[in-house]
């Protein structure tokens, strides 16, 4: 697995660029990751990202868009507006988590 320099520190990523170490991530890094895929983080984005981090810590897997809606309280429609076209992948990338594996 490659190591890449982001926000002034070495982080572990997979071949696609998703972080592989939960603890490599911090909020400063999230802003850099978001910028790399053309997203400017607002409070609404942060609500999703913080939920994903907390939920991953508790569940051991990345929440799907469905779970972000039902448990995280951010409607699917809003997720698509915040993270256009591929919300599941984009929000997990910014949150420093693996892509969601769940089908729904």
């Amino acid at each position, binding site marked *: 697995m*490659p190591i890449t320099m982001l926000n002034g520190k070495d982080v572990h990523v997979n071949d*696609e660029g998703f972080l592989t170490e939960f603890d490599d991530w911090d909020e400063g890094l999230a802003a850099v990751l978001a910028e790399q895929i053309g997203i400017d983080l607002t409070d609404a984005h942060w609500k999703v990202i913080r939920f994903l981090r907390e939920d991953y810590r508790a569940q051991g897997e990345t929440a799907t868009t469905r779970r972000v809606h039902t448990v995280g309280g951010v409607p699917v429609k809003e997720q*698509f507006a915040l993270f256009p076209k591929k919300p599941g992948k984009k929000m997990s990338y910014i949150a420093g988590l693996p892509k969601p594996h769940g*089908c*729904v």
Partner: protein
Amino acid sequence: MTTTATAPIIPNFDDTETDRKIAIICSKGNLDMAYPGLILANAALGEGVETHLFFTFWGFDMIVKSRMHDLQFSPAGNTAMHLPGSDRHLPQALAPAMTGMATKMLKKQIADLGVPEVPDFLDQVVAAGGHLWACRLSADMMHIEESGLRDDVEGIISAADFIEKTAGAQLLFI
């Protein structure tokens, strides 16, 4: 092997590739056969793919307000049906009497996995940008008008209209 990349690796989310389209024809009204189309539609939308669903024949029940909450699952005629958690087949002679119980069990299994019921699932598909279309012939056969359908169905259209709307799409018949 660990390597240090000099430039950051940025995932390619293919935002520019916008021409992929998927058309899903939902023709079954059994509870178990309602799900494949919904799951695939949801997955396609999550990948940024334009998605259209066309409800026809028994699949029409998925969007009929008075029926969509009450789709049934029957083990009758399904010779692949096993007893729950076992490799033993369910005797077909018993199957017809078991629709109620089988429906209840399937609904519970689906809910336990965090998968929504059919009407909720369609809400999610629409929220994700999916398009719902009703079949003209089915509406005429069943004497159902637009007012009897989910409000987010975009129209009752003919098969030819649907083919025209989904030009260039990958097509799935379920």
